[in-house]
């Protein structure tokens, strides 16, 4: 988890080569409550940083998941369609949303590391 980066909108991205795996943070899933539905992007679709790439819904809330960097979707986590609860039970693991081919790795530098993100969420409470 140490190479995980976070956005202010509570997405995480774990980088492996030029591909980043994206999900929502433990903090975000707690705020949402039981996740009941996840709308995933189409593979091959390109997004700019900050653009809405997926939607996550709980019983009482819907929230956009933004692309943390520019890039193209190379894979999505289809198992969430049957088991959206994985976002709650394993936000940093099986609850991942999509993999994105990173177009500009320098954008990662603008994101928070774990310690900075923890400090950020502590202030939100």
């Amino acid at each position: 988890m140490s190479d995980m980066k976070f956005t202010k909108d509570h997405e995480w991205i774990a980088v492996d080569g030029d591909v980043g795996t994206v999900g929502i943070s433990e903090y975000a899933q707690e705020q949402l409550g039981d996740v009941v539905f996840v709308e995933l992007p189409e593979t091959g679709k390109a997004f700019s940083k900050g653009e809405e790439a997926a939607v996550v819904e709980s019983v009482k809330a819907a929230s956009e998941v933004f692309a943390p960097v520019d890039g193209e979707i190379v894979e999505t986590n289809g198992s969430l369609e049957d088991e959206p609860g994985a976002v709650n039970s394993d936000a940093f693991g099986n609850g991942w949303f999509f993999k994105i081919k990173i177009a500009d790795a320098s954008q990662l530098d603008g994101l928070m590391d774990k310690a900075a993100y923890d400090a950020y969420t502590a202030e939100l409470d």
Partner: protein
Amino acid sequence: MRYLPLTDTDRAEMLAAIGAGDIKELYKDVPADVLLDQPVDLPFHAGELEVERQMAALAAENVSAGSVPFFLGAGAYRHHTPATVDHLIQRSEFLTSYTPYQPEISQGTLQALFEFQTQVALLTGMDVANASMYDGATACAEAAMMACRVTRRNRVVLSGGLHPHYREVTQTNARFMGLTIDALPANAEGGENLSEHLDDETACVVVQNPDFFGQVEELSVLADACHAAGALLVVVVTEIVSLGAVEAPGNMGADIVAAEGQSLGNPMGFGGPHVGLFAVRERFLRQMPGRLAGETVDVDGRRGWVLTLSTREQHIRREKATSNICTNSGLCALAFTIHLSLLGEAGFTKLAALNHAAAVTLAGKLAAVPDVEIVNDAYFNEFTVRLPKSAAQVVDALADRHILAGVPVSRLIPDDPAVDQLLLVAATETARPSDMDAFVSALAGVL
């Protein structure tokens, strides 16, 4: 005043508890120059007897359908409603409850809505239905907008057989949403080839069955053509009783059904409130507008119902919602459900057969009048008649003879000489042979 329980003593004591000298102090945030210090210029309060007299006097100026031979349809139909329906919907627990936001104390409404959704899905032959819309016309507009969301296309083709009000409501909404509407001209003779109007920008084709002129069609070929072009088929039904005799839209390939449910349980009521029905294929569920009741269990494991999938809706999604709809037609939907429960399969199909028989009988009698021609070859309980003179004038003359003869097509499609002599005539189970004979002989007298 009979609806206000607080006494002057209560008011004085409550003001004292608040620490206000008078009621004006509670309105202190209102700019002083706009706060009225006198009642507005309208009559003062009145007792039940006085109000009843005034309202009854207005009602008495109308010719009620039950008092004369009556043959109007065109989207609102006169059917007999069992006494049980009105008795049950007036139970306080149904009549005076809010939208079921607290499911633990709203199971009555929620169970009724779940039954309603099931009935609508069964009647239309679709997978799922919502908990109702305002009326058929608004449901039609919502269906067109939904088809655009589903297909991510922007062009909507409207059949010329679509009820003109449904067309106008859809056009109005589409214009503000930036959608393109291709509305085909009305044509009572049929022969419209909707498949020719499909292209790769077409989100859906909207077709009514039975159509505005009463014509009944088999739609499977059209459905196939729509699907081959990547478009959806939206089927509108304005007379829900027809589905007791006519094939369900879902069985003919419809993707969305938008219908008017007034015929079951609800009076014509001068046009409202009625109840919109909305049913879709399951794969489009998350793009559907409106409320949904869903089954679940409580903490003791007992079956119950809740409003569900509400993240589609405005109170959560705000401007990204599938629709701005909030209130639906809950009590009208309940009336629909109770009426249909009373009918059951046997009663509903027999009711439809009686309607069809009444229309066929009346058409036979009208066709025997010189210079009168029945336009449709296939119809349910409503058909179009070509008269030798202006249908509006004939209807007017027959109204003077205490017969409500039908709807002149020109009432809904003005300034079109081609429809000037067309009269829409409906015959339901409420039309007696003697009513038909009175109509036919009076018609012969005014032609």
